[in-house]
């Protein structure tokens, strides 16, 4: 039986690359934190570069299970994955998490986050890890 290739079992994490809303800064921080803690399980994908046709980013999205984190109703991450023909993806929709966890971003600055924003980013990091566990189980199966 061939050994599983750990490289192929990594999940491509593609956070919202937006800039106008606070949530994109929160998601960005959460994703970098998750990647720093588990770079053996996570590949970080730059959505703007993928949108611009970067071959390496697009290849990663096709070769690994993908978790997109969308920040708002525009769902740019999911739309991009559809555009480039990625079939195997999950979406963490941030507004749902905010509602489910009763979190408010009021008073949080999109440029610096501050303590409140950093705490919310930690919550999102936890949500990312929960989904990674599910995706990891599925990959092993």
């Amino acid at each position, binding site marked *: 039986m061939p050994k599983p290739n750990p490289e192929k079992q990594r999940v491509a994490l593609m*956070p919202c690359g937006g*800039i106008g809303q606070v949530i994109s800064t929160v998601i960005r*921080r959460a994703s*970098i934190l998750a990647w720093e803690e588990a770079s053996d399980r996570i590949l970080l994908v730059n959505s703007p*570069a993928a*949108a611009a046709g*970067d071959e390496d980013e697009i290849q990663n999205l096709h070769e690994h299970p993908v978790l997109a984190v969308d920040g708002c109703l525009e769902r740019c991450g999911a*739309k*991009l994955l559809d555009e480039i023909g990625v079939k195997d993806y999950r979406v963490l929709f941030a507004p749902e998490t905010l509602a489910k966890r009763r979190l408010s971003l009021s008073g949080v600055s999109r440029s610096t986050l501050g303590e409140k924003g950093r705490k919310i980013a930690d919550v999102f990091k936890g949500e990312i890890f929960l989904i990674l566990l599910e995706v990891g189980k599925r990959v092993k199966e």
Partner: protein
Amino acid sequence: MRKVCLMTCSALTDVVGSVARRAVYLVVEELRPECTVLGCLPATNAGVKEDMDYIRDYPTIAVEGCNRRCVSVVMQKKGYRPVLIFDVGEYLARGGIQPEPGEIKELGSVGKEAARLVAQKVAGLVDTLVKEEQ
């Protein structure tokens, strides 16, 4: 007064993306709030109306992080071109400014100073475009 659209690199794994983001926030929120709008690159790619209106109606400065030129490429996909390109990576390299890679998620003093310098340069470009429009 007509406005100028700023659209920036948002690279995740390169500290230049963090510097670029902070720099455009400084321009839009503090240095030139009256004459700038912030265009969102992924939203532009997704065809979101507000962002498409920005690049159609206003001259756009592409604040690029590296020679991949993601902002310019996405704008071209949509049938538009930036009127100016500011390359943050090149500017920092020329000035010998090197934020630490560890500053990606939160800029330290070097990264913040780099962002301030970039913001001042970009604000100067905004002024030039606004004058040309008058």
